[in-house]
């Protein structure tokens, strides 16, 4: 498939996400415990949104899943296998991550950003890597901008390149950490639409977000965290319409 000249995003490929289980996960910075006994399951191909106040440990939790920060105890299971027993670099090839501030490589074009790890980490021949990168960019509606550098793209476009970059590695799980928080309001929608179509294409996703409408519409499960613990988890309708805990009610009254 070559670049669509219309600039219309091509249909998202079908993905085969793996299941993700967090089992009694604990994490700390030094002696400061930040994640306390967090357990939940994200069935294969479903989307879990993690919500909660600032400092509640949402980012830390995501960084524990791909071991950018090593958990102190507990376990992370990807497709039933312990993520703590494989080499972190191997694990991370199977888990895509998208950041609040995009973190694209500024001296690479959009295309090179997407192809780099595929070629250098997975060892895919360069021509093939570029081909895959082009397909991923088409999918996120940026085929015509493949040769732009990040600074010549809007925040929304940069974030979609970052998503394409993660997808190019054919991950089994995608982690999103407040990926629209740094965007101008009119650019948020494009990124959320991309994530919604990704969610419906079979990817397993964990999405930390403050976009409650997105969580309500797209999530199969919503997890509310506070002070490093899961306070409440369940289908979006139940959490948003019948919050059980006082803390979730207080949180929702602040953000809705």
């Amino acid at each position, binding site marked *: 498939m070559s670049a669509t000249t219309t600039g219309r995003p091509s249909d998202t490929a079908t993905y085969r996400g793996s299941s993700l289980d967090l089992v009694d996960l604990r994490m700390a910075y030094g002696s400061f415990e930040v994640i306390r006994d967090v357990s939940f399951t994200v069935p294969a191909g479903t989307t879990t949104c993690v919500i909660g106040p600032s400092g509640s440990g949402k980012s830390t939790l995501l960084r524990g899943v791909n071991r950018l920060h090593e958990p102190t105890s507990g376990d992370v299971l990807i497709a039933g296998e312990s993520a703590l027993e494989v080499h972190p670099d191997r694990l991370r090839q199977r888990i895509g991550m998208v950041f609040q501030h995009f973190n694209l490589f500024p001296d690479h074009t959009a295309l090179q950003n997407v192809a780099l790890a595929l070629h250098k*980490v997975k060892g895919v021949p360069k021509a093939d890597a570029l081909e895959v990168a082009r397909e991923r960019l088409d999918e996120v509606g940026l085929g015509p901008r493949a040769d732009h550098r990040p600074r010549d793209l809007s925040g929304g476009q940069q974030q979609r390149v970052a998503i394409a970059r993660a997808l190019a590695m054919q991950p089994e799980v995608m982690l999103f950490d407040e990926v629209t928080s740094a965007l101008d309001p009119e650019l948020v929608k494009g990124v959320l639409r991309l994530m919604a179509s990704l969610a419906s294409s079979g990817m397993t996703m964990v999405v930390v977000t403050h976009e409650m409408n997105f969580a309500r519409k797209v999530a199969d499960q919503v997890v509310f965290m506070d002070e490093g613990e899961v306070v409440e988890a369940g289908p979006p309708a139940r959490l948003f319409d019948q919050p059980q805990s006082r803390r979730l009610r207080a949180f929702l009254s602040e953000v809705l």
Partner: protein
Amino acid sequence: MTDWLELLRRTFLDFDAMWLVFPQMLGTGLKNTLIISAAATVIGLVLGMVLAIMGISRSIWLRLPARIYTDIFRGLPAILTILLIGQGFARFSQSVFGPSPYPLGILALSLIAAAYIGEIFRAGIQGVDKGQLEACRALGMSWPRAMRLVVVPQGVRRVLPALVNQFIAIVKDSSLVYFLGLLVSERELFRVGQDAAVLTGNLSPLVLAGAFYMVITVPLTHLVNYFDNRFRTGRRPTAGPTSGLKEVHEMDRDVDPLVHGENT
């Protein structure tokens, strides 16, 4: 009064005396100054990069030696280092390179330059946004590969102006190898000027040497300013103003379950 002016002119700007050393200045002095400076810079860049990587490593056994090395070679006067190395290692050097002190001069300048360049690289690399390394690691890159492919190139680009400044300093410091006693064919700009000045009892050849240094250093100074301005402005002018509103529909698909769901 005119006598006095004439005396000054003859002391500093005796064009005949200058003209006499000009061929030597160009053929021997400039050539050797450039060779010494370039060699010291190249070796300094390589060693400096090693020091920088050691300096940011997580292991104290790499950080500490780099720190000590840097403190020593930045802390000593260049002339002292050059004399200690140039004379102290003369025996070793003799068996490898022959009697010329030229290689040891270059080595001493390189070791000094490495200390400064190492600090420049380290600052540049540490100034790269932490998110860059994090993005690499999240893609499954090992730390060394992430550094090599992404972080170090960005760090180096940030410090190009500082590196040019360092080269200017090396060009000027290259005059210090004079103290090691160079062979005639190895004399650099300062030594050529100094020898001619002693011979003619006139400072004009040294002034000429000074002019040669300026010819190298002044354009480089302006190059630095040019770099600096270019890197500060960052974003290149594109095709004119754009609107984020255009982008709102970039992700529209012919069939978009979410969007259509909203309307039904």
